[in-house]
């Protein structure tokens, strides 16, 4: 292993990576992204789902270049360091549904683990029950891991399979730039196929070129360092290895100081950007998300980076997240700034039950 690789996967390497992300995310907010949403893997997948017409919540529709950049940045890193290894076969269908469930939980809270930390660093105290819920969900997941839970083995796959997600990302980039419109309805509203918000969070975004470059940088660094916002908590509890946790703490501290410097630190519970104040379901939503991410082996960012290095199972999880985000809005599961959606709480309960069933039943087949 080269000295650079050794450094970047060390505690100090992760602190540097976390700090870089912690600075870049609030800067993206300054440049146009929604409040405390410099990077949010779930919100951004939800916006992409909306832009593709998978849901019609008109305020959250945009093809987020950060997602494209993150996956392609991880691809570049994997190719550069000979870690591009296409593989699949570890319960892809279950991973797809775990992606859906994770997104349901995260959209009840209104943010992925990345955003929960970024919300905290921006002074949104509603993030605290969310993060406690996240840790609780990861804790439940750890119990299953200790009891022998496994989604089974992946197998090496043809190189071509590893290029599917990168190609999808390039197509999304073309759609973002070209934004094709096939016509307008009787009221003059665009009929798609690509929808972009004109008001609300979906209409707020940093310039494309900056967003994609930041995504590329984060994707590259995160692939090299194995940065994971869920693995951080999992490894600290399960393996007494706090290396990744230092990365997350560095992210929070760096984002706090950057927010302070940019005048974006507004402490309190009320009137926080793209957030609600329902403590119980901020907690509950993230219990589901934390559990689903832990069963799938990593946070939504990590899944995206793994997809970039050719992991077809992580790609299924990412696909599940985008499809799930569509369902979350169509079925009134996602929260809004005014509170939880009509079916948010019940979906969280059902989702946790499904995750428990997955945790109890998935074992590596004997003789595999």
């Amino acid at each position, binding site marked *: 292993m080269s000295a650079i690789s050794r450094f970047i*996967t060390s505690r100090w390497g992760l602190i540097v990576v976390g700090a870089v992300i912690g600075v870049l995310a609030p800067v993206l907010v300054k440049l146009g992204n929604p409040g405390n949403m410099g990077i949010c893997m779930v919100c951004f997948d939800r916006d992409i789902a909306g832009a593709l017409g998978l849901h019609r919540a008109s305020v959250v529709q945009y093809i987020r270049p950060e997602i494209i950049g993150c996956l392609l940045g991880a691809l570049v890193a994997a190719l550069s*360091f000979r*870690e591009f*290894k296409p593989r699949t076969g570890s319960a892809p269908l279950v991973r797809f549904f775990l992606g859906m469930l994770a997104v349901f939980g995260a959209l009840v809270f209104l943010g992925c683990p990345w955003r929960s930390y970024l919300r905290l660093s921006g002074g949104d105290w509603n993030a605290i029950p969310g993060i406690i819920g996240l840790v609780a969900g990861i804790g439940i997941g750890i119990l299953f891991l200790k009891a022998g839970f496994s989604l*089974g083995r992946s*197998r*090496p796959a043809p190189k071509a399979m590893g290029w599917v997600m990168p190609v999808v990302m390039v197509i999304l980039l073309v759609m973002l730039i070209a934004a094709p419109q096939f016509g307008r309805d009787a009221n003059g509203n665009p009929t798609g196929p690509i929808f972009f918000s004109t008001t609300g969070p979906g209409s707020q975004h940093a310039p494309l070129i900056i967003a994609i470059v930041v995504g590329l940088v984060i994707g590259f660094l995160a692939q090299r360092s*194995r940065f994971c916002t869920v*693995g951080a908590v999992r490894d600290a509890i399960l393996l007494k290895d706090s290396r990744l946790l230092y990365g997350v703490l560095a992210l929070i501290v760096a984002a706090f100081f950057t927010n302070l410097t940019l005048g974006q630190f507004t402490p309190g519970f009320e009137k926080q950007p793209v957030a609600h104040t329902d403590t119980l379901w901020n907690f509950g939503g993230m219990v589901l998300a934390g559990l689903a991410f832990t069963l799938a*082996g990593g946070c939504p960012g990590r899944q995206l980076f793994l997809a970039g290095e050719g992991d077809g199972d992580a790609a299924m999880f990412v696909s599940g997240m985008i499809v799930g985000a569509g369902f979350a809005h169509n079925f009134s599961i996602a929260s809004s700034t005014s509170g939880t959606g009509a079916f948010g709480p019940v979906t969280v309960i059902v989702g946790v039950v499904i995750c428990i069933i997955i945790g109890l039943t998935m074992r590596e087949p004997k003789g595999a």
Partner: protein
Amino acid sequence: MDTMKTIDARGLSCPQPVLMTQGALKGLKTGTVEVLVDTSASRENVSRFAGKSGWTVTVEDRPDGSFRLLLKK
């Protein structure tokens, strides 16, 4: 005679290879343990865990792109 345990963690994603290694090393004071993994992240994680537990680790790249880790104490 020095018997060698083999852990085949190929195809499994973290933290499973580390947990399997942890299980294999438990109660083992000396010996040689062979761990097979197929991603760099698993190679790093198993090496780090074994190193912290006082085992010396040598890594061998295999022709199929996987890694053979020899843990000795």
